[in-house]
């Protein structure tokens, strides 16, 4: 007849003040104490570290040019840049095998590039051109890349988390049920901290736990969902792992501003999931340096807070680390800088030059079996489901 009472911590986390004016509730400065990197860090080959740096710089440059192209109205719709979070995508995806599935939310350019999509295909997609990864039909929020096992880019908050469970289910099923060998692949499912509040994520975690799915849910905890500081929208924000623990998942908190740290930790998390075929939950602490999307003046946080996070810049941190170890000569850094600038410039030029997606594409890809060409009429010519037939 046990009565297990678990009162919440005295200042009940995330509960709004019952009345009175809302003071801006900032997530505050980074709580991380710069702990020394473990000795394993020193074993990572320099060219590997260089490739990470170059990729992070590429993403940064790419995103800056996206913002510019958005101002120039070359990119439309919603556009969410990844600046500040580069170490997460790069560190996580570098710890992955090439055929491990990846799925993420709408803030997806960084994942696409780190997963191997060309800057050209990614940029042309946002320019609405035929050479975009999805022929200009998906847009910024829907980066898909089959060759690189990237299953999107999903716009509905949280909706990708059951998909992640499904991808893990599929690889395991393919290995164990169809091929009769041990599961070999791990799925990474990225989500924002705001997505933790979607019921679908809890269902996905429960399913992953029940079915022993090799999936790692990575909460890219940048402290905000749009203008909502995490503790204003999420209970237990000070210990987000409680959400994973409630489903029996392996839970981790990881500093996501240091790519070496991310890679080291995630390598272990991923390999454990691969070996045990058990799901995991990662509270990946990071920060979004820019606004939520292109139209966000960031009034919900202070300049001081933003400045405090500046010193955490993942690109700068890796550069400093390499410089401190004498592994980044000035000319190497300059080469990277000019290379990524050129690569992104070419991506923009390529996208400018790429043809507009032809109107005939409007009617393609609705079904695997094509529905016939665009007929130029507004009458419901698709309703019969036949090859371009007009009754």
């Amino acid at each position, binding site marked *: 007849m046990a009565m297990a009472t678990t009162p919440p911590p005295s200042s009940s986390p995330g509960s709004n003040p019952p009345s009175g004016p809302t003071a801006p509730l900032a997530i505050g400065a980074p709580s991380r104490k710069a702990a020394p990197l473990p000795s394993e860090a020193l074993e990572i080959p320099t060219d590997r570290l260089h490739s990470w740096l170059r990729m992070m710089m590429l993403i940064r440059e790419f995103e800056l040019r996206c913002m510019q192209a958005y101002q120039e109205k070359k990119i439309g719709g919603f556009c969410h840049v990844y600046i500040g979070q580069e170490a997460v995508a790069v560190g996580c995806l570098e710890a992955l095998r090439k055929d491990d*599935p990846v*799925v993420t939310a709408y803030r997806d350019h960084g994942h696409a590039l780190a997963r191997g999509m060309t800057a050209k295909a990614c940029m042309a997609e946002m320019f609405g051109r035929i050479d*975009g*990864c*999805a*022929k*200009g*039909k*998906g*847009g910024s929020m*829907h980066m*898909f*890349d*089959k060759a690189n096992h990237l*299953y*999107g880019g*999903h716009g*509905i908050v949280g*909706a990708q*988390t*059951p*998909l*992640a*469970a*499904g*991808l893990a*289910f*599929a*690889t395991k*099923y*393919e290995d*164990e*049920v*169809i091929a009769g060998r041990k599961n070999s692949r791990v799925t990474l499912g990225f989500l924002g901290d705001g997505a933790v509040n979607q*019921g*679908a994520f809890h*269902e*996905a975690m*429960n*399913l992953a736990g*029940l*079915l022993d799915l090799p999936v790692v849910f990575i909460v890219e905890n940048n402290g905000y969902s749009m203008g909502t500081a995490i503790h204003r929208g999420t209970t237990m924000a000070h210990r987000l792992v409680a959400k994973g623990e409630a489903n029996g998942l392996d839970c981790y908190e990881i500093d996501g501003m240091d790519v070496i740290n991310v890679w080291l930790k995630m390598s272990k998390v991923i390999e454990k999931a691969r070996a045990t075929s058990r799901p995991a939950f990662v509270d990946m602490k990071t920060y979004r340096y820019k606004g939520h999307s292109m139209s966000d003046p960031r009034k919900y946080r202070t300049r001081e807070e933003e400045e405090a996070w500046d010193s955490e810049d993942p690109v700068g941190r890796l550069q400093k680390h390499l410089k401190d170890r004498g592994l980044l000569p000035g000319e190497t850094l300059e080469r990277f800088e000019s290379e990524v600038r050129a690569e992104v410039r070419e991506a923009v030029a390529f996208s400018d030059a790429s043809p507009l997606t032809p109107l005939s594409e409007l009617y*393609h*890809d*609705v*079904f*695997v*079996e094509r529905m016939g060409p665009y007929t130029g009429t507004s009458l*419901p010519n*698709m*309703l*019969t*489901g*036949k090859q371009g037939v007009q*009754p």
Partner: protein
Amino acid sequence: MSSTATETPSATLPVPPGTRLVEFRDAIREAMSGEMRRDKRVFLLGEEVGEYNGAYKVSRGMLEEFGPRRIIDTPISESGFAGLAIGAAMAGLRPICEFMSWSFSLVAADPILNNAPKMLYMSGGQFGCPIVFRGNDGAGGQLGSTHSGCVEGLYSNVPGMKIAIPSDPYDAKGLMVTAIRDDDPVFFLESERMLGNKGPVPEEQYSIPFGKAIVRREGTDCTIWSWGRPVHFALEAAEALAKEGISCEVIDGRTIRPLDTETLFRSVRKTNALVVVDQSWPFASPGAEVAAQVAHRCFDDLDHPPLRVHSDDVPTPYASNLEQEYLPNARKICEAVRTATYRA
């Protein structure tokens, strides 16, 4: 093996002795099990589909044959397991995802409507979703307001998926085979009210093409177009009307999307009158679509505007007498046909 519309035994034809008679629920299972034997990528998931043998016993015995890796009992998490199935389909598996009732699919509306049918499109053709969602649809068993939805009324507005809705065991098997082999998302609507119905069903797997309606009864005075369970009400009405000298052509659409407008228009051009019987609510329904398309394409052939028989435009009541009155039924169909043929 594929079967054309004309080979299909009609519900009204006498069954020759020695014909293999199979229950509706078993016909669905035969299709699923047959496909699972043929293709290891096919699996079934849903609430109570395994150990419990299915809430309506459609999957009876499947756990025994295929084991728990392919017959997967899920928690009551429609949004989660429908999304899981979609992810699995993107990766190349061919899930059959059971909703115990389509009414419960509303909690999974986002994955099934805003995700699966758009995946191919928004990925620019890269990721299809070969998935079948299936379960009990419609009212009639006194299940009350929240358990009696006819989701075709809501969901058929959405492009990128197909909707099959069989009216007899033969079609249930053939359409389910087609659904599982289809490369696109298919919504497969079963009626719990018909699961015990028996009909002739060949033992082997066969497929019935989508978008091919079947004439259940030929006639000359009025076309009655329907899908699923109300096809039987239409046949009942046609029988009664025949005695009054009104000859009805009853057509079973078999699929709502694609819609077999060819057969539809051909029949209306012959009979010059249409009554569409659709179990969903009237407003912005498949029935409205059929009426609007016929009005458009057969305008000069019509002696009377298309009429519609639906469930009434109110939430589903529990009480049996109210529910029976609420549903489309033979009486309402007869009234509509008499009006459409100016015999009212």
